[in-house]
């Protein structure tokens, strides 16, 4: 199995709404290397730029600055066959299990189009077979699913079809933007299981986007924590979850409602999330940070603190001997 690489170089995004500017994503660089396949979580609260990042990686959104390189080439300048290759190999599973379906078509449409597009040679029967296999792989009964309209299926079924779509295409890189936020606890496990098996069995690199750190902790190998478009902390998932360094990450981890009577929310005084950001220089978390210092008004860099553990916080001095490159720490 050949590998595919997707590289983000100084990618950032600025939205302009009227006169207002929203820095949805501040410059970020990292690559998804093919082997070994991993699951990288991008976490952060609502509006932190997760979906923006995903859309840019998928080539659905033009970055304001920087480039997205697929196999070393800028995706906006790919030639016909390269573009098709990019499309086939970089895929997504989206958050809203209803919105991904075109209400006009039966659910088959979602699976059939990519098969037809990416495997033009297949016969009708072969296509059907591919669809059935994919559905079974996510624990669905093809006969119960095919030929029905999206509104006739439950949210969990729809979400799993969505994952089945990724299986059918067999991409090298999968961006999963909140694939389980809309389903209930018991189904969540099923879907995540399907994602993990994609990595295991098909060597798919997965960017798992979520604000749910519980599941992130369970499925992923490493994590990038975003806050207002900037990376706050990144690294190996167990390291970050078990000993978060950045105050924001600490807050996040502390706020996880673990389904565990042993691990109740502590009484730590958390910063009020209502406080709106002051744009401009400085740490994005400054206004909410319980430990803020005057020097935090200068923008911190993302620096290594431990092996496979980066953070951008002026409270922590960088370890100069460690590699600061984001990719190498994921």
């Amino acid at each position: 199995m050949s590998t595919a690489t997707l590289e983000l170089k100084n990618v950032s995004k600025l939205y302009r709404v009227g006169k207002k500017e929203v820095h949805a994503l501040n410059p970020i660089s990292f690559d998804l290397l093919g082997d070994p396949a991993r699951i990288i979580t991008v976490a952060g609260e609502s509006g932190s730029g997760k979906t923006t990042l995903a859309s840019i990686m998928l080539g659905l959104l033009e970055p304001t600055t920087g480039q997205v390189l697929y196999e070393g080439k800028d995706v906006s300048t790919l030639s016909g066959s390269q573009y098709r290759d990019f499309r086939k190999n970089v895929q997504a599973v989206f958050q809203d299990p209803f919105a991904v379906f075109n209400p006009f078509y039966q659910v088959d449409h979602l699976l059939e189009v990519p098969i037809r597009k990416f495997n033009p040679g297949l016969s009708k029967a072969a296509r059907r077979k591919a669809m059935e296999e994919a559905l079974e792989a996510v624990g669905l009964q093809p006969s119960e699913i095919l030929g029905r309209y999206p509104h006739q299926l439950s949210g969990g079924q729809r979400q799993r079809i969505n994952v089945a779509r990724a299986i059918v295409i067999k991409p090298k890189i999968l961006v999963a933007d909140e694939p389980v936020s809309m389903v209930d606890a018991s189904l969540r496990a099923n879907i995540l299981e399907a994602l993990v098996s994609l990595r295991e069995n098909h060597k798919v690199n997965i960017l798992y986007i979520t604000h749910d750190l519980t599941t992130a902790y369970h499925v992923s190998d490493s994590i990038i924590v975003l806050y207002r478009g900037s990376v706050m902390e990144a690294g190996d998932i167990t390291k970050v979850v078990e000993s978060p360094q950045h105050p924001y990450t600490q807050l996040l981890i502390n706020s996880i409602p673990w389904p565990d009577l042993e691990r109740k929310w502590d009484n730590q005084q958390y910063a009020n999330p209502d406080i709106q950001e002051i744009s401009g220089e400085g740490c994005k978390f400054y206004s909410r940070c319980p430990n803020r210092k005057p020097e935090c008004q200068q923008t911190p860099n993302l620096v290594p603190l431990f092996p496979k553990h980066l953070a951008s916080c002026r409270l922590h001095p960088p370890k100069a001997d460690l590699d600061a490159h984001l990719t190498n720490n994921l």
Partner: protein
Amino acid sequence: MINYFKRNISLTIGLGLLIFLILFTLHGLLTVEFKQAYPLAVRPKQPPSLKYLFGTDFFGRDLYTAMVVGVWQTAIIGLLAGAAGTIIGIVLGFISAYFSGLVDVVIKFICQILTPIPAFLIQVVIASSIDKRDVTIITMAVVVFLLSWMAPTLVIRSQVLSMRERQFVAVAKLSGMNSLEIIFKEIFPNLLPFIAAAFVAQVFQAVFASFYLAVIGLGPLREPLLGNTIWAAQSQSAFFNGWWWWPVGPSVAMILILGSLALINMGLDEMANPRIRNKE
């Protein structure tokens, strides 16, 4: 399907009426003698009877025949103008919304600028500036449609814009569809209720505009268009003279045509409204 029609009563009745009108006209067109829709064909001023189902008018037209031909001609004007307006609207709306940028700005701007100009008055200006010998049912339709494509354009545009943001479009893109395929296979089918509603509104406008043009003497007056017949009855003081059947027949036909369209419009509204549809 049947259940759906049971629930969407307006659509059912509207379609029913429309089918009735179509059958009435088709049956009529196959059986009547066209000449009887024009003056001097039958005994004038006869009230409805078995012989003259809808009576006859001052000029000696058989009003049943006039109605058959009139519904047909009115439908042609409505359909032509409606179709033309809607198609232009769809094309421009799609172009504008999908390709955005300068094209969008220009199209949207033109539409917005033209919208406050009362279309009918411009139609009057045009109709009174062209040679009357060229005023046929077709030119009528053209005149009507000339300034009525902006509304569908704006509606389609805004629908496509919101549609474009829907996730299934992103998914289609990821599935390797190109822009054209996305427009026609993904977005277009979902706009059908809106397009149908825009079309119905266009037809409505066209039928009324042709009626008003007749009122000011600008239509193809010899033809038994419904509007022409109603206005002719008014010109001959039909009501005062006791020839009530003369204006009433075509008026009822007009009410049925437009009413059925309004009901269909209402039904399509329900269809396009996800809150209702989702209950299925």
